[in-house]
């Protein structure tokens, strides 16, 4: 191969790689950017014009109150879901990795079963379970805050357990033994050694749990009531029945807020934990 052929060969390879990447990332990120772009072109019509005809913030000024109410409800549900998922997930992962029980991998597989259950099946299952519980106790959890938060916890807990178990399995427990041997109390050891080591996994797992709840549609479709609708379900309904340009604006607001959250967590623990545990989808 002459030097010229070599350069041409490398150039064509770069060109092919570049086009594949451009195509994939345009497909992946284009829709998100396009929603933001279209939100600045506000018109009284049921579709979007491209390229935008005007630049205005009108869509942002006209966002109906119901979207903010739904947003606030979603945040509350997601916070409750995250708290419960951590309360179950932290002792479960610590107990599972540290104990010397038999069939550990089976127990872990059992804890991870909810990952395999499609959202629609989980939503239907919890709705029918709430009906059955309501029929015997008289208390119906359908359409309530806790009814939704519990179903989301079911779906989100495996993510907390997944990140924590992955971290704990690499964790050298001789550090803790050394602290104990040097006279630290059990609580002191947990606070000074265990917790700092677990922190990245905990933040990552908690962020996953929050986002599972915050972006969920299939479970929410079954479990939201007329008074309590989560934000994604509200948008889902709006897209099915009455498209308004304001949903572009409020979607953009939520996207920016979500990304700010991810950035914040990334600042605290670094992004490589995410890459290792593989996305929130």
């Amino acid at each position: 191969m002459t030097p010229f052929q070599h350069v041409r060969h490398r150039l064509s390879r770069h060109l092919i790689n570049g086009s594949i990447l451009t195509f994939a990332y345009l497909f992946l990120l284009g829709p998100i950017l396009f929603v933001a772009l279209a939100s600045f072109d506000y018109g009284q019509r049921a579709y979007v014009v491209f390229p935008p005809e005007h630049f205005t913030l009108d869509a942002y000024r006209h966002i109906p109150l119901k979207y903010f109410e739904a947003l606030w409800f979603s945040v509350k549900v997601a916070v409750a879901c995250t708290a419960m998922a951590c309360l179950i997930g932290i002792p479960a992962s610590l107990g599972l990795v540290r104990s010397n029980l038999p069939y550990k991998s089976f127990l872990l597989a059992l804890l991870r079963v909810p990952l395999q259950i499609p959202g629609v099946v989980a939503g239907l299952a919890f709705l029918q379970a709430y009906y059955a519980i309501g029929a015997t106790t008289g208390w119906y959890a359908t359409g309530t805050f806790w009814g939704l938060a519990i179903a989301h916890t079911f779906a989100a807990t495996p993510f907390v357990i997944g990140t924590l178990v992955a971290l704990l399995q690499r964790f050298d427990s001789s550090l803790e033994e050394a602290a104990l041997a040097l006279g630290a109390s059990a609580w002191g050891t947990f606070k000074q050694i265990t917790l700092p080591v677990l922190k990245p996994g905990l933040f990552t797992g908690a962020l996953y749990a929050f986002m599972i709840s915050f972006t969920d549609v299939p479970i929410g479709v079954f479990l939201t009531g007329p008074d309590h609708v989560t934000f994604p379900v509200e948008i889902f309904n709006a897209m099915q029945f009455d498209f308004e340009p304001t949903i572009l604006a409020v979607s953009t607001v939520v996207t920016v807020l979500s990304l700010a959250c991810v950035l914040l967590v990334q600042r605290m623990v670094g992004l490589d934990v995410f890459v290792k545990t593989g996305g929130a989808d």
Partner: protein
Amino acid sequence: MKLRWDLVLLPAMLISLALLGTSQFVFLTGSLHRDLGMGRLAHTLSLDNYTELASDSYYLTTLKLSIMVSAIATALTLLLAFPVAYIIARMKSRWGLALLAAVVVSSFVSIVVKVLGLILIFSANGPFNKLLIALGVIDAPVSLIGTLTGVVLGLMHYSLGFAVLLFYSVVITVPRSLEEAAQGMGASRAGVFRQVILPMCLPGLVGGALVIFNVSMGGFTSTALIGAGKVLTIPVVIERTMLLENNYGTAAALAALLLITVLVINLASVAVVSRIRRGLIL
């Protein structure tokens, strides 16, 4: 003092199993009671709901459509995600990390927002149609709403991100030196791909493909919105049967069918991947 870790695990394990057990038990038994209409169920146990699913061509078409759409989406996602993951894994600059970060960050954006964007881009007045008309590929705008193509695109968009992350973690286990050695010994790029990369990535590829297929089979949000009531896959029909028609028994039987399909594919994937690893297949 030695901490009893099994006692730490116990309450968490019990709560998890209670959530799993209650929810799954109730709907699975519900699927064994015949619908009487108006949301009421018969008291006697029977397999009526399942025989209805098996005999009614509507449900059989739904199942076939779900499998077809998921299979196409899986194949196309695989064809796009693997090269992307491979290119990123072999990048020598910091760009690779930035590209992975973009995938991770995009996975935190709500799916309804992504589907909204997809619908806008591929709508009749959207930039995609404008581009095709400008290039002379088509004369009149084509809409993807309510079409199979649109639904497949939605499912691809849903699984592309984690497929790239998944295959990235597979490709980085193949040492670059191995490829260089093969090339040094005179193998062509296609030869390196066929004889080094493909065999070493095969377990990850098969496992990943089955994960994507499963996720596509369960995909609801994008299919419901883009399918717009014209493309009925199992998850969409489950939602309609339960919430619009109030046929709890039939909906539960459909959900059981979907759950069993997904679980069987999962077990098969574990078995197939371990057989490939041990060199028993291929």
